[in-house]
């Protein structure tokens, strides 16, 4: 089976939509890759795949090889720089037109999820991150069932649960945590995304979607709180247009001064050369995800030993 050479499988879950599952998956993958691990991303959001867009590889197509599909490479391993390889698989790569609706009922989705889990030739990778759609329905049940049946013991490391701080979001995410309890999926921890927004003009932090809800929820459910990730429009610009993030001097994010430039030109939508993984190092969220990735890795290693 194609998962045989995958060392660890990590699910990225949330009961709520639009909280940043895909962007957390993306950044976790980039951070793990920067730490030297080889990473794969499997996007099982069939009706709204976002991973191809986030990596700027929307026009890529999947190659069929004897025995399965070859995932789309994002970047190759660079041992001198200590960067691991990164590749992705998503339904987005299989669609003829990017605007095409995928109107599938449950059984068809189940079959696709199963096929994604069995027929993708990942090769030897350290981490496979599985990005999921919102909810606790067909895709999730199929995912849990297939992994339960096919994965090797200890291979499924657990789930990173993403939420935003406001009560309306945590209400749905609590359902997802209960789903993990019922299906026996270990929760590695909770990430609170969109926690505060730092004004690029005056560096004032506003809690647009309130603050602290994710941490309180993690405490209630006795799971680890992995960290708070603020909204950074520069990250959105990085993935949308490929522009390298630059911050005005004095910008503090989670207590860290990330400002480098006197004047910041936010007008241009130009694309900087270089790989996403290189440019991401300049993003204010990179150190935050470095810590989150480290905690995830430590958690996985400690349960294994």
């Amino acid at each position, binding site marked *: 089976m194609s998962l045989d050479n995958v060392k660890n499988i990590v699910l990225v879950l949330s009961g709520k939509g639009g909280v940043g599952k895909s962007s957390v998956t993306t950044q976790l993958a980039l951070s793990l890759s920067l730490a030297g691990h080889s990473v794969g991303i499997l996007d099982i959001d069939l009706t*709204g795949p976002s991973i191809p867009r986030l990596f700027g590889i929307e026009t890529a197509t999947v190659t069929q090889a004897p025995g399965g599909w070859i995932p789309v490479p994002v970047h190759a391993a660079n041992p001198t720089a200590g960067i691991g390889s990164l590749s992705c698989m998503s339904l987005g790569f299989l669609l003829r037109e990017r605007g095409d609706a995928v109107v599938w009922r449950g059984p068809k989705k189940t079959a696709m999820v199963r096929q994604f889990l069995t027929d993708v030739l990942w090769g030897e990778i350290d981490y496979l991150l599985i990005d999921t759609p919102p909810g606790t329905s067909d895709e999730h049940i199929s995912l849990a069932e297939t992994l339960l049946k096919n994965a090797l013991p200890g291979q499924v490391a657990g789930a990173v649960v993403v939420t935003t701080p406001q009560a309306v979001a945590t*209400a749905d995410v609590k359902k997802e945590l209960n789903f993990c309890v019922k299906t026996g999926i270990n929760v590695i921890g909770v990430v609170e995304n969109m926690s505060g927004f730092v004004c690029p003009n*005056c560096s004032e932090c506003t809690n647009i979607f309130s603050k602290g809800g994710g941490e309180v929820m993690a405490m209630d459910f006795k799971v680890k709180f992995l960290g708070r990730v603020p909204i950074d429009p520069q990250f959105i610009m990085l993935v949308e247009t490929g522009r390298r993030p630059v911050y005005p001097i004095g910008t503090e994010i989670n207590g860290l001064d990330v400002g480098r430039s006197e004047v910041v030109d936010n007008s241009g939508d130009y694309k900087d050369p270089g790989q996403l993984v290189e440019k991401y190092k300049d993003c204010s969220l990179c150190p935050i995800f470095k810590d989150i990735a480290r905690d995830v890795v430590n958690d996985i290693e400690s349960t294994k030993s």
Partner: protein
Amino acid sequence: MAPSLEAPDNVEDVLDNPLKTSPNLVAPEPEHCPGPESEAAGKADSCAGCPNQAICASAPKGPDPDIPLITERLSGIKHKVLILSGKGGVGKSTFTTLLAHAFATNEDNTVGVMDTDICGPSIPKMMGVETETIHVSGAGWSPVWVLDNLGVMSIQFMLPNKDDAIIWRGPKKNGLIKQFLKDVEWGEMDYLLVDTPPGTSDEHLSVNSFLKESGVDGAVVVTTPQEVALLDVRKEIDFCRKAGIKVLGIVENMSGFVCPKCTHESQIFKATTGGARGLAKEMNIPFLGAVPLDPRIGLAADYGESFFDAYPDSPACTALKGVVRRVGEEMGIKAEVILPED
């Protein structure tokens, strides 16, 4: 052998197969199952050897006998509007709540809200009725009344514990949506707003087939400005086209954020590809307006208050009222009837 992927081109097939009562299966559907409700059920090539074959083959064919009952039940409702978005967390439920409150400001109107998001219901919390339960009488299930003229139905009211996960596959979700339409005593209503989950799957197909007969005014599509969201929304509009649902228009939510300290406006979810306005033009649908990101909208939702009543003077409120009037206009209702100028 290389794996095969059936091209996802059978949308029309799925839409043309009207929903029928699902037979009780004895085993999970096989991979290439034509669908237990379809004409080919029990007869297709992939049915050979399936333990369900006999059950599916003998199941009654033809349209769902419950559809006339649904049509009858909903005959007292003048306007039905769907709130859709391919993307999650863009503000479908928030907008549904605001639209419902806006319609209900006119005391002569009766408004119903049906929450078809089975796995992540948000409407009860946003309306401040999270802890209510449904009452059952001889005439059917009673909706939970938020105001004298604003009733709500959601799965949240049926859960023993509010954080319970609803781990349901498609057919079960479809069954509940049918009950919401067939067994709820909606009565005489001016508007029924149907809030949906993200995506284009079971819930959307069911709502479409159940309501087709009784007639839907159209769908309001909600999005945020960035391309990652528009990408999914484009799929939803494609779905509406294929399903024959009229798109009343598109609303851009979370459009720009004004810093409360320095009043500098930031485009948090920057519209790098033209935002909803661009998409509306591209897909040739009406653009209903843009609502700025205001942290107080989220707060009002968390506390279950009406944002219109709590912050009537905010710019977001003015923008929302504009959008509500445009929705009315697209439905052919005069703006002053929907929301009188204040």
